[in-house]
């Protein structure tokens, strides 16, 4: 079961990892992906509140159906974030390494093309969607 949060507040990767491992003896692999603000001083993330949490939950259920995983956490932040602040966390546990890597990669590819968030730079410019992200999303046969 992958838990999902959409929030303004920072997240604590170590606490999330500890929570996923707690009271279990069957986890052999834990993969985390953290996405960070890069190159710019600040980045503002707008989202569609009624849809963003629901859409990420939908992606989480899809990952659970596709991959032999144990659990996970997805946290996506919104609001104004500074350089090198965390934007998104995807953490997945599984018995063997391959499903955890696959599910984390799948979730990031899908988040990039499905989750209703938009990034704006401090000068007002909107970050453009990359064609390669659409291609990466399509490779999972969405």
């Amino acid at each position: 079961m992958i838990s999902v949060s959409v929030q303004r507040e920072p997240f604590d990767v170590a606490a999330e990892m500890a929570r996923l491992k707690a009271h279990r003896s069957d986890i052999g692999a834990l993969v985390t992906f953290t996405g960070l603000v890069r190159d710019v001083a600040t980045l503002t993330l707008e989202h569609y509140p009624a849809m963003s949490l629901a859409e990420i939950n939908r992606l989480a259920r899809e990952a659970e159906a596709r991959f032999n995983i144990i659990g996970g956490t997805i946290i996506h932040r919104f609001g104004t974030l500074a350089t090198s602040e965390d934007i998104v966390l995807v953490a997945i546990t599984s018995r063997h390494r391959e499903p955890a890597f696959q599910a984390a990669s799948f979730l990031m590819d899908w988040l990039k093309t499905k989750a209703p968030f938009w990034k704006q730079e401090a000068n007002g410019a909107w970050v453009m969607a990359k064609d390669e992200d659409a291609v990466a999303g399509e490779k999972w046969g969405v």
Partner: protein
Amino acid sequence: MTMQLLYFAWVRERIGLAEEIFALPDTVKTVAALLDHLAARGDGYAAALDDRAAIRVAVNQAHVAETFVLGPQDEVAIFPPVTGG
């Protein structure tokens, strides 16, 4: 019977509204027809919606294609390709 329209990111900025109430005309059946109808409303709408390849639409919080058939009470969100993650 009215529909809620929501705009995000530069679509919101160009239209100059985050949301509005909209009475769906009988002649407008699909998402594509709605986008055409809105683009004809004036400068802000045209600037927002003219490059149709850069427009994405969700109906009742789910992504849909331009061929999707609208209902009179739908929540329709119009926005650029997403850039989260």
